[in-house]
């Protein structure tokens, strides 16, 4: 199977082509990559695009659901924070 390589906050992460960004993040042992307004950690919850817990910034664009977006070679993923209350 072909592999893809993306960058997460500057570090390279590899996965199988076709995997979602969320799957790549989980496979590296991360379970959370975002914090809510009051600072609670969030990662994947619903896995089908309804909860928005998993959003990340992809190639400069905020609020992309990591569980729905397939990782593409060279994607630059940044972890984002909600505006704090």
């Amino acid at each position, binding site marked *: *199977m*072909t592999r893809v390589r993306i960058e997460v906050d500057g570090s390279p992460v590899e996965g*199988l*082509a*076709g*995997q*979602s960004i*969320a*799957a790549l993040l*989980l*496979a590296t042992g991360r*379970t*959370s990559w975002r914090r*809510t*307004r*009051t600072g*609670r*950690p*969030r*990662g*994947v*919850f*619903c*896995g*089908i*695009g*309804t*909860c*928005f*817990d998993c*959003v990340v910034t992809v190639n400069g*664009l905020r*609020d*992309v*659901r990591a*569980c*729905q*977006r*397939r990782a593409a070679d060279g994607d630059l993923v940044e972890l984002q924070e909600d505006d704090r209350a």
Partner: protein
Amino acid sequence: MPDVLVVGGGPAGMAAALAARRHGAEHVVLLEAGDDVGGQYWRHPPARHVDPDEGRWHHGWQRFLDLRSALRRDPRCEVVTNAHVWSVDRRDGAPPLVHAVIGEVDGQARVPRTFDPAALVLATGAQERTLPFPGWDLPGVFTAGAAQALAKGDRVAVGRRVLVTGSGPFLLPVVSSLVRVGARVVGVVEAAGAARLARGWGAKPWRLAATGGKAAELAGYLRVLAAHRIPYRVGAAVVAAHGDDRVEAVTVARLTPDWSPVPGTQRRVEVDAVCVGHGFVPRAELAISAGCALGEDGAVEVDDRQRTSVPGVFTAGELTGIGGVDLALAEGLVAGAAAAGGEPAPAALRRRAVFREFATRLAAAHAVGPGGRSWADDTTVVCRCEDVTAGALRRAAELTGSKGLRPLKLTTRAGLGLCQGRTCGPAVEDLLTGVLDPGRTAHRPIAVPVRLGELADHNRTGNREDVP
């Protein structure tokens, strides 16, 4: 202009599109948000990466392949993938206009398309329901559907020591998938009690035979449990998850028949992931926007031809009530035929009846008990986006004497976050039963997020390419 527009490319939508063509629709368009058809049920990696043994991951994979190739072969059936329907415009005497943006998920510069169908079939499926309990928002707590999606679509296990809990037959295929991606499943904990399960599954067992594959499917799951020595417990639930930044353990308690935890029965189990599913709720936002009447349970009401209360709008699959793949396929056949102005095949009508009965029995066996409301204490987060607790919701409802959803949302911010109440909505409605006027948190005029630039673009061009 498509004769028939189908929204949703899962089993119901695929069946509906093909049936519409068979019954005389000259042109059918099927809109699917993902990059392939199949829906959550036949969720799979993209075609180039499918492994040769893909069939082992699914039930009825050959049926899926047949449906998909029939769709692809038909030049008058246009399948539009990556199509995100964000709103529908009601009209008098005609089905609504349907606005979509086509392109990458949450991307920018997606291409707008508006459809003006003679008949519309909504097949938008369902999403999992999860009752809030202390710690349910800790990372490492997943919906059972997430575990399934990550296993089937990505070949990733959500954890190494996983407990599966909730209610309903869906937990079993999730266990199979978890095992297949190498997770150790330390147990399955089903909330329904033994007596209820026996009544639901066992009543008129000869009827189960009519559902054919169902019994065999069930036996297959039980074999997986046995082979991996996975304990299956009934009448119990995970009522708390523990950990600092992620789940490290859960508390399992025995339940009374109404799902209240029995004091003194709590037991701690170490896990690094827990998968939770308490049934499903229809994804009804488009149907609500279109003006379709809903029943008590939040499902869209349909007549015997899958017609909704809005002329020209049909629906099929989980949107009409949770019933599984076979019911979805049968309803899709009926809806597609009726949408094309044809007479549904008697076989489809018969299958629909059989699987509806099956679904009703399961729903009764696994229905959420009122005691489930007590799992959330006052400090439990209910709205995961805005961190609104059950206590805050109860207090606000009491203090303001507010019976409406809108004031409650504005006071507490529940449902105003990124997900717009998709996750907490059913829980809020449920927790405030008796306080709140029955309202629909799924009332959401913008069905999926669109970027402001895309919206501006839509208004500027007034894009109506499909209107002659």
